């Protein structure tokens, strides 16, 4: 029982070491050869198979070497491929196939050594011990180029074959060789294992005297070594040995020790398991935590969403509110504006009413009286009287007509209905046209209308300029006594302005009234003091001159006359 277990351990080591086998010198030369062939062939099944062999992909290696074999011509290639495939097959435990491959390798001395070593191993695996011994002994004839490790393994396998053939003396010999090889390799584990192997072999032959010291040796060595399994094995071996020697007390001690090692092994495993369990618990906790975090995140996301919705609702609400507020203020503004406009319109209306009731009613009434007087004079046939009255009536009609015009223009201007377009016009014909209407009036008062007009172009609205001129000339005639002179001039005032000047020899305007007229810059109907002679005419003039981008300047000296100057934009 004991050594069967030991053998098993050893076989697995053999397998393990078989991998390292590649470093063998023979193998190295085989590899060199393979690489040379590969370089020549480029990418071919051969090279693929070989590269898979190097990569230890034995399934692929097996398949491709099969293909490569079908294509290969030279013995060299065939030998190499057979070796590779055989190796792959043995790795996959297809020993019969491996055997076939290895047997096909030629007896070329280059491969012979490798071939027989492999055959020995394959026959051992197939439990044909005699053939195994046969091939190993061929291999043994030339072991110069076999690595230390490979040598030891082969010795071991050879010894094993002898053990199974019960050729104990030969097995003895090879175990010793293995031991010697192990010493050369200076590996404690291998050394101890080799010792155990020999001891087992001896013990199996009942050569207790030789076996027991080896067991003791291996036990002692194992004690100093760190491998627990080895410690357990050696202790167990000692326990069996002591039990067979009937040294039960010692046997029990060894068993206890083996048990202890087993426990520690178990402990090691257990600790690992425990730590695994711990890990699992920790993992589970982490998972729980993750779940919790996720829940938390979900909650937060929900809260965030809720918060955002709330805010957006609030914003919308505010927007709607501000919209309504703005609309409201707009409306309020509009209402205020309308109220102001209404006030102005109302004032204009009131003013117009007062004009109609006072300024228009009284002259019409006078006119009626004049007509009644006329009727009497006609009856009396007072021709001179009739002429006089008629002249008065005409003058009255004229002035009333002008007032009516002013009222009309004022209301048109106020309601922004007046047609207004500034264009370039020559000033002198316009002044002449306006003066033409006053010739009769001036003649009745024996006033001389003098003109000094330069041909000047100005940018003005024609109708509004006529209204201005009519009013100013009317005023000049009204306030100039009989036989006076009114001088009208036009010319260039500055680079950008021209002027129309109306100079009379009238009564002049008292300074307090003049200052009032000049203050009409920002005129308002409220400020008009009709009783003091500042009437609608001047107001209209001031407004229209401003609208034409002009200026009105009035200079006056009492009893000497008034000079009225209009500055207007000059046009080139």
């Amino acid at each position, binding site marked *: 029982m004991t050594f069967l277990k030991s053998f098993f351990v050893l076989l697995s080591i053999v397998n393990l070491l078989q991998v390292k086998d590649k470093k063998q010198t023979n193998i190295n030369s085989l590899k060199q050869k393979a690489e040379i062939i590969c370089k020549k062939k480029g990418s071919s099944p051969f090279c693929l198979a070989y590269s898979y062999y190097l990569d230890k992909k034995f399934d692929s290696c097996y398949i491709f070497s099969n293909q490569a074999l079908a294509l290969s011509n030279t013995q060299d290639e065939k030998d190499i491929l057979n070796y590779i495939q055989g190796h792959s097959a043995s790795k996959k435990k297809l020993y019969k196939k491996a055997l076939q491959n290895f047997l096909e390798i030629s007896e070329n001395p280059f491969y012979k050594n490798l071939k027989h070593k492999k055959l020995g191993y394959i026959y051992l695996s197939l439990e044909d011990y005699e053939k195994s011994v046969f091939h190993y002994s061929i291999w043994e004839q030339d072991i110069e180029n076999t690595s230390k490790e490979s040598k030891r393994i082969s010795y071991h396998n050879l010894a094993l074959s002898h053990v199974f053939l019960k050729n104990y003396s030969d097995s003895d010999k090879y175990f010793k060789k293995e031991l010697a090889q192990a010493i050369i390799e200076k590996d404690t584990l291998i050394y101890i294992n080799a010792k155990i192997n020999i001891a087992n072999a001896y013990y199996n032959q009942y050569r207790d005297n030789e076996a027991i010291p080896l067991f003791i040796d291996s036990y002692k060595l194992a004690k100093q070594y760190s491998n627990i399994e080895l410690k357990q094995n050696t202790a167990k071996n000692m326990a069996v040995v002591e039990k067979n020697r009937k040294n039960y007390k010692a046997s029990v001690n060894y068993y206890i020790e083996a048990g202890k090692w087993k426990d520690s092994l178990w402990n090691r495993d257990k600790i690992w398991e425990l730590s695994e369990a711990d890990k699992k618990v920790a993992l589970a906790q982490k998972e729980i935590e993750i779940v919790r975090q996720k829940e938390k995140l979900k909650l937060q996301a929900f809260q965030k969403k809720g918060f955002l919705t709330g805010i957006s609702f609030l914003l919308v609400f505010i927007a709607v509110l501000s919209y309504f507020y703005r609309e409201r203020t707009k409306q309020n503004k509009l209402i205020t504006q309308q109220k102001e406009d209404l006030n102005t319109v109302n004032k204009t209306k009131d003013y117009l009413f007062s004009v109609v009731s006072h300024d228009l009613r009284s002259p019409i009434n006078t006119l009626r009286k004049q007509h009644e007087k006329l009727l009497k004079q006609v009856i009396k046939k007072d021709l001179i009287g009739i002429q006089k009255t008629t002249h008065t009536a005409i003058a009255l009609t004229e002035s009333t007509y002008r007032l009516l015009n002013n009222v009309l223009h004022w209301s*048109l201007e106020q309601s922004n209905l007046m047609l207004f377009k500034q264009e*370039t*016009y*020559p000033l002198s*014909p316009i002044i002449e*046209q306006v003066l033409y209407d006053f010739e009769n009036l001036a003649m009745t008062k024996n006033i001389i209308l003098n003109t000094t007009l330069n041909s000047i172009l100005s940018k003005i609205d024609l109708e509004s300029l006529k209204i201005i001129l009519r009013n100013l000339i009317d005023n000049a005639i009204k306030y100039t006594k009989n036989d006076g002179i009114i001088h009208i001039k036009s010319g260039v005032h500055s680079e950008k302005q021209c002027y129309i000047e109306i100079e009379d020899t009238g009564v002049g305007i008292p300074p307090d009234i003049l200052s009032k007229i000049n203050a009409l810059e920002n005129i308002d109907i409220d400020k008009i003091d009709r009783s003091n002679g500042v009437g609608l005419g001047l107001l209209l003039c001031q407004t229209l001159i401003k609208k034409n981008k002009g200026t009105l300047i009035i200079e006056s000296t009492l009893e000497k006359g008034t000079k009225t100057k209009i500055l207007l934009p000059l046009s080139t």
Partner: protein
Amino acid sequence: MKKLKLLLLEDHIDEAEELADFLENNSYKITITTTLKDAEKQINNKHFDLIILDIMIQGKPDGISLAKKLNDNNVDIPFLFLSSMQTKLLFDQAKLTKPITYLLKPFNKLELLFSLELAMEKHYEQSNSISLNTNNAILSPASLFIKKNKSIQKVTVDEINYIEVEEKYSSLVCEEGNYLIKLSLTKVKELLSNPDFIQVHRNFLVNVKSIKEIYLDDNLIILSSGQQIPFSERHKAAFIKSNPILK
């Protein structure tokens, strides 16, 4: 020199006749119409130099309708609108392409004559010519409108002997006298687009019909009126080229 033919659309016969009398006295020929239909008929039958339109005809703004119609049909005649109301509303109805000239009732004689000048000037886009200075004239493709006393008369372009550059203006020399036009020589040439007027010098356009003699060697042109015009080399070459007989 010819009198201008005017068409008057005015529904108040009294006013129309008063106006016509005054204008006849000022060397204008007047045709009075009292309805839109009548006016249209007259326009289709005869040529007029200017149309005076009362805006409101029997309570309807027919004056503006007529102007609009003529404008849409590209009838190239100047208008003068008469109106008793100076309100925007009325004029807004007529969205005419050319600036309109209007005269508010009541008007005096000077205003009427002046407005006729304005209407002509605005229509031919030669503002402040005859209204500013009596030496000025308005040029249309067929006629030259000049000022005689206080009224406008016309001279056909055939009567122009030659045109000479005078600073910013062009001086049109006719049998009756010289008139200044506020246009460059190039513009005048363009406006006339008349093959009878050829350029003989950078500063001169000559009416071919008024040429009496040409002295090619002396670079001189003598007109029937006896005036001498220089003939520049450049224009002479072009002239010879287009008149193969001269070669």
